[in-house]
């Protein structure tokens, strides 16, 4: 099946949640983004954020993790129904990534994806480019992250 047969254009799919523990925030930020507001509780309280918060890249990576967990379950479900799941390939990047609110210690973010467009690549027969909107919302219902993504699909 194709992605466009599986998902209605414009319909949001809930992927699951990811909890940002202090340990996970520090583990990510220490390796990749050791700015004071991501690794030092007291410095974070003095910053514009007002408290220790996750690196924006951690918020994005957690979307990917949540998507893949969803996708594994979805592929198994389709296979159990005798359907062939779409074959997804790498992504070429993203646009308009917005970190809308800080993600603080013990926040739980619910992630979603919306298929925005799906079109065959003229230059590569059998390849389809899917455009997506990825979003994350915290436990208060406030959006924390959004980006326009893309993922290749092979027929």
């Amino acid at each position, binding site marked *: 099946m194709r992605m466009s047969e599986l998902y209605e254009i414009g319909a949001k799919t809930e992927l699951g949640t990811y909890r940002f523990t202090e340990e996970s925030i520090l583990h990510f930020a220490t390796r990749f983004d050791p700015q004071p507001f991501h690794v030092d509780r007291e410095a974070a309280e003095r*910053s514009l954020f007002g408290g220790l918060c996750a690196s924006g890249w951690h918020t994005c990576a957690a979307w990917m993790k949540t998507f893949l967990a969803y996708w594994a379950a979805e592929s198994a479900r389709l296979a159990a129904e005798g359907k062939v799941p779409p074959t997804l390939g790498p992504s070429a*990047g*993203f646009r308009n*990534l917005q970190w809308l609110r800080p993600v603080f210690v013990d926040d739980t973010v619910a992630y979603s994806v919306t298929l925005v467009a799906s079109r065959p690549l003229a230059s590569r027969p059998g390849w389809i480019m899917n455009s997506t909107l990825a979003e994350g919302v915290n436990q208060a219902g406030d959006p924390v992250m959004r980006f326009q993504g893309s993922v290749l699909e092979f027929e």
Partner: protein
Amino acid sequence: MSEANLYYEDFAPGRSFALGPRQVTTEEIIEFAREFDPQPMHLDEEAGKRSILGGLAASGWHTSAMFMRMMIDSYLLRSHSEGAPGVDFMEWKKPVLAGDTLGGSSTVLESRPLRSRPGIGVVKFRHEVTNQHGEVVCLSENSIMFRMRERSEVSA
């Protein structure tokens, strides 16, 4: 950590900061992928070779995170950064493979005071991450907020 000595005023249009070098190891690619992006081409050399990426390749999100760390080590940790509202675009143009050495640059495109937050200015950068062959593997533009050295400059 060295003392922070870069303020908004120091990010004049045209100024460029070198990124890297940073080695990309097999172990790090697999560790990141296991945690956040467990797809075969990021976990297994043979699966990577069979994919269109041509080898064990870093997750795009891992490349983004390594790019972040290179910005940190080049200029952000010695600056008065107040974080970034987002990223205009990021293109993962070529695979980042195990054994690659990443470099590149961040160049200031423009800067402006933030009216809503006196004492803070926004600096827009164009970032290029390159590999050891001189190929651009990742291209991006984004804006980062910095504290001003002189708060009074924005009161006019």
